[in-house]
């Protein structure tokens, strides 16, 4: 498989994730779309690691997976705290800081 195939697969997943981040109102689904974007980046890293025959790309993919876990934990903690205060998970009703 030439590398271009992996790049275009990664591009497609990234764009779908970006569309999800922009269009969805449910913040949980927005967080899931961010996970999809991070996953698309991982495909690129692992594909280039294979092409160059160097394992560093896979090490960075591991770091990105760890970051995604940390981000999901903190983000979902924020969502639970916010839901307890305001009884909503919709992005356009989160306007405490909006003036």
């Amino acid at each position, binding site marked *: *498989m*030439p*590398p*271009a*195939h*992996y*790049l275009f*697969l990664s*591009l*497609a*997943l990234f764009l*779908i*994730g*970006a*569309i*999800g981040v*922009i*269009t*969805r*109102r*449910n913040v*949980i*689904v927005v*967080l*899931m*779309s961010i*996970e*999809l974007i991070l*996953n698309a980046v*991982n495909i690129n890293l*692992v594909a280039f*690691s*294979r*092409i160059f*025959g160097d*394992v*560093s790309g896979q*090490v960075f*993919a*591991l*770091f990105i*997976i*760890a*970051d*995604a*876990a*940390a981000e*999901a*934990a*903190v983000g*979902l*903690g*924020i*969502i*639970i705290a916010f839901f*307890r205060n305001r*009884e909503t*998970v*919709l992005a*356009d009703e989160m306007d405490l800081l909006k003036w």
Partner: protein
Amino acid sequence: MLDSIAFYFFAGVAVLSAALMVTRRNAVHSAVLLVTTLLATAGIFLQLRAEFIFITQIILYVGGIMVLFIFVIMLVRLDIALHHIRFRLQRWVALFVALALGVEITVVFLFARRLPGQGLLIQEPAPADKLPPNTEELARSLFSSYLLPFEIASVLLLVAMVGAVVMAKKRIDQ
């Protein structure tokens, strides 16, 4: 031959279920479709002979992060979110942004292919039977060249864990 069949199968499943994920109304359906996407991506990793990333993806993403997501979906009330699901105007903004970005990256990619000395993107990777054992190689690199980032990642995970617990716990004194 088998390689390309595996690639096209997993890529098709990944893109299809990702597209369904951002368009389904029910957040639980989105979560299940995201699990499908992540599993298909794990298949892509296996096709790239990255066995350790493959198993980490399944254990950590599918087994850990997605369970966390589904827990939170069950904790918050969803029926309010089901009625008015998406921004109307922002659908077109999103499509425009995605199309612009996609066309831009594609044009840059096709153009970069013609530049001298840029044959990297069309060259075939080394045959799979000559690869060193993946997990050994990864561990050697992780614990020699990337030891400091590895330790920093552990501190990051600790901070994230403490932060998540503090934010999600109930205030007792109020």
